[in-house]
């Protein structure tokens, strides 16, 4: 559904591999993680903690907090404001996060 717009600017970004819920997936180093996840068709990207409603990135500029994902073990990271790094492990979020060792595991 989502793909890169063709442009005249030379594409200098390097392709890398990231992992989404354990599955390998191609992305470009330095692109916004939310963009990479949209291209990988990770929609809905999360479900809200209160109503369980599905959510996907909306603003893509750090304001709406709809694109929260877990990155390398850190929950609720804004994917639109996180550049892709080689080998990053991303988990999609269902419901509220846990706090420390309290409140059980998030999932």
């Amino acid at each position, binding site marked *: 559904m989502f793909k890169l717009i063709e442009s005249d600017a030379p594409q200098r970004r390097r392709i890398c591999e990231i992992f989404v819920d354990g599955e390998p997936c191609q992305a470009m180093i330095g692109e916004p993680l939310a963009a990479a996840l949209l291209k990988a068709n990770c929609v809905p990207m999360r479900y809200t*903690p*209160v109503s369980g409603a599905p959510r996907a990135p909306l603003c893509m500029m750090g304001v709406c*907090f709809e694109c929260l994902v877990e990155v390398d073990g850190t929950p*609720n990271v804004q994917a639109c404001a996180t550049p892709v790094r080689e080998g990053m492990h991303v988990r999609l979020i269902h*419901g*509220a*996060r*846990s*706090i*420390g*060792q*309290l*409140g*059980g595991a*998030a999932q």
Partner: protein
Amino acid sequence: MTKHETDFIVVGGGVVGASIAYGLLRRGLTVNLLDEGDDAFRAARGNFGLVWVQGKGANSTAYARWTVQAAARWQSFSSALAALTGIDVQLQQRGGLHLCLDNSELARRDEELKGIASTIGEPYPYEILDRKAVQHRVLGVGPDVVGGSFCPMDGHANPLRLLKAMHAAVHMLGGTHVPGHHVEMIEYRSGAYELKTPHARFRAPRIVLAAGLGNRQLAPMVGLRAPVEPIRGQVLVCERALPFLDLPTLHVRQTGDGGIQIGDSKEDVGFDDGTSLEQMSQIAARAVRCFPDIGNLNVVRAWGALRVMTGDGLPIYEESSDQPGAFVISCHSGITLAAMHAEVLVHWLCGNPKPDLITGFNAERFDVQAH
């Protein structure tokens, strides 16, 4: 200009004014609830949401008893609101904790609660807890917590849902909430008060000023005084998490939706309802000492709000002696006292004798004694 005539006008659409309007409407009276715009100082939208008994009224037995009775009414009050409006205000009233970070704080707390319990003249259940007993009540307590106090009458609710529910109730019972009307002038004319706003005139034989800090300007228009001052509190809200905190504490609570609210700063900075890094750091640091795992959470919102405080922290409930039928109501604890305001206070506003407990809550107590 149009005139709107009702039995009562309540000035102030916050928690205090809405509680009173709701109570009046339940008695079958007609009410206009006048409110300002979103540029007003709105303690009702910035507060912490505690239904809190422990420690209140250390300087006034009457206020301690008024508070205990208010807390006792909360469960049925919120049930009635939910039955009418379908809005659950997320009341949890299984007790509350005040955590202490050193032994002298704990000793002071013990003294203070002992003092209230020995003078209040009615049951005042509370426990002083050592560290182990605190850990028995809540998980994840930090190593700096030496103990605390627990009071089973305490609880918390969602203050925004409460305000929404009361506004819905006002509407459903036939009252009118009129936002965007700043009262500029109050005149008594041929048997009723006339309130002039930039857009309209409103008439009623009885008026209740419940405009928070706005009462400072309004009260003198009907021969009353409301010497209230703004005391700023700053609040931090962290992202929603799975439930971990079973009880609210004075400084940290987990809301019904999972968010962590951190608060209880107190500053005298005039009418500045902003935030400051210094205060936010202090309240965050205390919260993390109480519950270290909170340090892992992202803060998603922060704000300042202005408490409506009298010099002694007690309310003003007063009818004008010059202009009967005009009342001023100012208090800091609008959430805790909501049921008292909707029920007991409204009984008085309708022409019944003033309840004994609150006869002393007049503004004249602040007058300097002449010698």
